[in-house]
């Protein structure tokens, strides 16, 4: 009887070793371990065996059964691993092919810069204000202490729509529009389009400015310096230095222009900064008492500062754009760089 067990075991082992796929393995399993399989046949013989031989034979059959079970399982795992490896080999991708990327849109670089600048001032507590591009001379000039015969009007080559109506030459008229609407405190930033009759390598007839205005009790020139110095460090980088120089604007007194240390040469002097180490980026000053007069604010109670910067120039500096004409040509080969 033991010989029978041994014969089954041997036959099974040989067959299992030769198995080459999972379907055949399943057939083998049924043939040996199934209800009508050869192990079951051996078990049936067990009933015909003498009681004294029965334990030994039972043990032998069980050993064969266990050996077969574990051999089949081992073979199954081998075959599964082989199949998986074959499938993986067949399905391997060419990693060097480029990824399938979603189409990437691009915000215009001017609006990216506006978002960044406005974001810094909003964080400081300023809020965005706006006004019309087509503006009255009153808001664009007169109420900003620039009466009709003021020499400063000459430097604004103004587009006229009709008598008394112009394309705004700066974003400053929004100062007055906001001050007329509300009493201090006022803290606004005003991004917007502005216009001058000028079109050459460094001027565009339409360009962008950002205006800022803060009016409250005790606003000082020192506050103006502090706010703008913080702004340039945030925008241009922590090592950027700001320099304030006396200047003239009709609607501020004292007035200043602010330079930043040249981002190209870091102050050593280069072509971009005309070898001065400094780049002029904005005009600013303390709000002129006459402007408060137009706004109906009391100059003894409140003081304020205002500033205005050209977005185009700042965008050109930050992104090393060589000519202003790129900004409004809308060549996608340009737009997609930002």
């Amino acid at each position, binding site marked *: 009887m033991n010989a029978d067990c041994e014969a089954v075991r041997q036959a099974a082992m040989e067959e299992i070793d030769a198995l080459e796929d999972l379907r055949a393995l399943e057939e083998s399993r049924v043939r040996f371990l199934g209800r009508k399989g050869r192990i079951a046949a051996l078990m049936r013989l067990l009933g015909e065996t003498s009681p004294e031989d029965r334990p030994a034979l039972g043990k032998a059959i069980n050993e064969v059964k266990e050996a077969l079970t574990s051999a089949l399982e081992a073979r199954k795992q081998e075959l599964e691993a082989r199949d998986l490896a074959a499938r993986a080999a067949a399905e391997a991708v060419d990693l060097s*092919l*480029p990824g399938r990327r979603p*189409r*990437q*849109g*691009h*915000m*215009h670089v001017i*609006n990216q810069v506006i978002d960044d600048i406005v974001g810094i001032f909003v964080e*400081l*507590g300023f*809020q*965005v*204000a*706006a006004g*019309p*591009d*087509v*503006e009255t001379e009153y808001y664009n000039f007169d109420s900003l202490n620039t009466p009709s*015969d003021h*020499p400063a009007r000459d430097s604004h080559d103004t*587009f006229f*729509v009709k008598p008394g*109506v112009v*394309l705004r030459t700066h974003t400053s008229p929004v100062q007055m529009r906001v001050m007329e*609407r509300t009493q201090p*405190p*006022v*803290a*606004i930033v005003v991004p917007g*389009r502005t216009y001058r009759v000028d079109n050459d390598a460094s001027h*565009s*007839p*339409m360009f962008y400015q950002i205006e800022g205005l*803060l009016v*409250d009790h005790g606003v*000082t*020139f*020192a*506050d103006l*310096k*502090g706010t703008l110095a913080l702004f340039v460090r945030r925008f241009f980088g922590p090592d950027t230095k700001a320099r*304030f*120089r*006396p*200047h*003239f604007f009709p609607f501020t*007194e*004292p007035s*200043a*222009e602010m330079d930043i240390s040249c981002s190209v040469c870091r102050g050593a002097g280069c072509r971009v900064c005309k070898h001065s180490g400094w780049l002029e980026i904005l005009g600013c000053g*303390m709000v*002129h*008492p006459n402007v408060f007069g137009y706004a109906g604010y009391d100059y003894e109670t409140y003081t304020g500062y205002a500033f205005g910067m050209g977005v185009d120039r700042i965008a050109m500096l930050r992104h090393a754009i060589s000519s202003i004409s790129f*900004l*409004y040509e*809308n*060549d*996608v*080969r340009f737009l997609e760089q930002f």
Partner: protein
Amino acid sequence: MRISLNWLKDYVDIDVDADQLAEDMTMLGLEIEAVEQLGADITNVFVGRILSIEPHPDADNLVVCKTDVGHGEPLQIICGAKNMKVGDKVPTAVVGAKLAGGFEITKRKMRGVDSYGMMCAADELGLGEDHSGLIIMDPATPVGRDAKPYLGLDDVVFEIEVLPNRGDWASMIGVARELAARYGRPLHVPAIKLQEMATPASQFSSVTNEAPVLCPRYIGRVLNGVKVGPSPDWMCKRLLAAGQRPINNVVDVTNYVLLETGHPLHAFDYSLLAEHRVIVRRAKPGETMRTLDGEARTLTDQMLVIADAERPQAVAGIMGGEHSEVGEGTTTVFLESAYFDPVSIRRTSRALGLMTESSQRFQRGADPEMAEYAINRAAALMQELASAEVAQGLLDAYPEPVPRREVTLRYDRNNALLGAHVPPDNQRKYLTDLGFEVVNESPDTCTVRVPTWRHDVAEEADLIEEIARFHGYEHIPVTVPSVRPIEVRFAPEHDALAALRRLLVGYGLTEVCNWTFSSDDAVRNCGLEDAYLDMVRLENPLSERQAAMRSSLAPGILNNVAFNIRHGSNDLALFEIGPVYRPRADRELPDETPGLAIALSGAAEDRYWSRAPRAVDFHDLKGLAERVIEHFGAGFEFTVSESALFQAGQGANIAADGEVIGRCGRIHPHVLRSLDIPQDVYLLELNLDPLLRLPQRYSQFQSIPAFPPSLRDMAVVVDAEVPAGAICEAARRAGGKLLQRVEIFDIYEGKQVPAGKKSVALGFVFQSPDRTLIDADTEKACDKILRALKHAYQAELR
């Protein structure tokens, strides 16, 4: 304004170097445009003396010179100039020398004779353009010395930008005055050395001022026996450094005094003035004269003229007349120095379209006191340089002295405004150093009288700026204010538009930013309706193409499409967000309405190795429109547009919450042709204003279904013209409340269905909130839907 450092040193002691001086001027508000080191690129040019001049053996136009340059053997130099003689001292460049423009001197053989250097003409040393001959130097110049200082080539010239309110800076004395205050040094104004004739000027001439409002002060002087001739070296050197070409001693003196004092002078030929007298008056309406530039000018009674007994001889303060111009034959000069009303000069200059150095200075505001110094200085120089005999005294019509302003400064107000602590003594001293006179004082304040040259100072804030400048902007502290928030929002649309921009960029679109100008042609070329010709128009456009403000975003973005295709970028997904402008008859200012334009063309997706790119079509554009309107929380509806902008059958009007806000479609081939665009373009334009006005709507939570949905598909065959949207809508209405969603998943026209028919495949999603649906539920609903479709559209199940 060009400021020569050597000249500047006449008026104030300067012991800092040029870099420091430039820095100091900058920090006073004198903006430096450029610093020019004259002769900086010139080396090894010495004062040489010509020992001999021999003819060149082999060239008629060259000579062989021996020139002593003070060291070594005399140099043999071949020269082409003709104006020198033996013994002359000339600037001589030796071998190894560098001249203007980097030109280097080497040993050369010229027509077989060696030349060991070069004797220089003016242009070779960067002194103007003159190449007519060698520079012959003063015979007293020591041989062998560096020639540069003797030629004014050791000077530094600062090109400064004069602020519009600081006309006083457009002069040597004006700049020196600031620097004297800055360095705490005295200002040296040249003393006038004038020996007048015994005969008073009033015997020669007279001045009648009939318009004292337009001309508060008019001074004349009569200079006899003037000998017109060249100016001396020292004056030429300075005029050249200042960028002025020397002309003759009379003209040069007026220019020199102008540069020195900032005060414009005018010289008339006395003999050509009728009755030899001067009348300051308004022009008679229609009166004409010919100005120095040769133009005939027609004048109005708003313009001031300087006339003789008969006719105008100058447009006051702007330009002299041809008739009385000083020339070769002039012997007696009537010299004018006046103070004109800035506004009047400005208006006349504008009306005549005539802007001159003089008009610019007067309209910025001249100095009525300087008028007197300037004429005396000029008279003394003419005496010195042109042998003028100066008649005694001024013909000074100054009926009412220009009033001088007094302004009070509060020391604590200064410190409060600047946020700095400037001691009162310093505040006062900064002002007095600048020429302000203290007329009244208290412990907390001082009242100062403003100098006549400071037209810019009218109130306390102006004095505070002076104090800030001299205290130094860089010494004012740096503080960050705390900003008090307020509730009112001034521009809520700003954030909404920024969010829309980000949304569209997220969908793969690229933003363009166009000039907001337009024109009739641009409107017509795009096939826009005539209503778009109602534009805000400019009186002074840069060109006809930019003559108006845009009434639509379409021309701009279509132009961008054309431009990019022309430059080889064919697959385009562009958008622009910005205003359009429409005139308002009832208001001064036009409407400015924010709009959105989208233009799609070419492939809908990037080229990729695994699939062929799909071309964009109408529904790409429609999908974007749907997303945009949904983004604002509105419902949308598309109806047929008949606009000539679109190809028939591919244009739609777009409504949001029932209001038409724009349109979209495939651009009509005629429009494409007129814009020279060789491929299809899909364009959308929306008025964003109604969307921006919608109240903010926040999504409200819908409970997540607890029971699974049942999905059913159905394909029906209908007439090809039946809109798929109508089939969907009919199915939705017939489907009962268990029907949650209807989707179209296929549209088929072709061999499988009869001609003129199409198959529409619909997917239904049924769902109940409180039970799992069984087949009977969905079969019943599908039957109802099919019956409804049969009834409404003769649909057949496929």
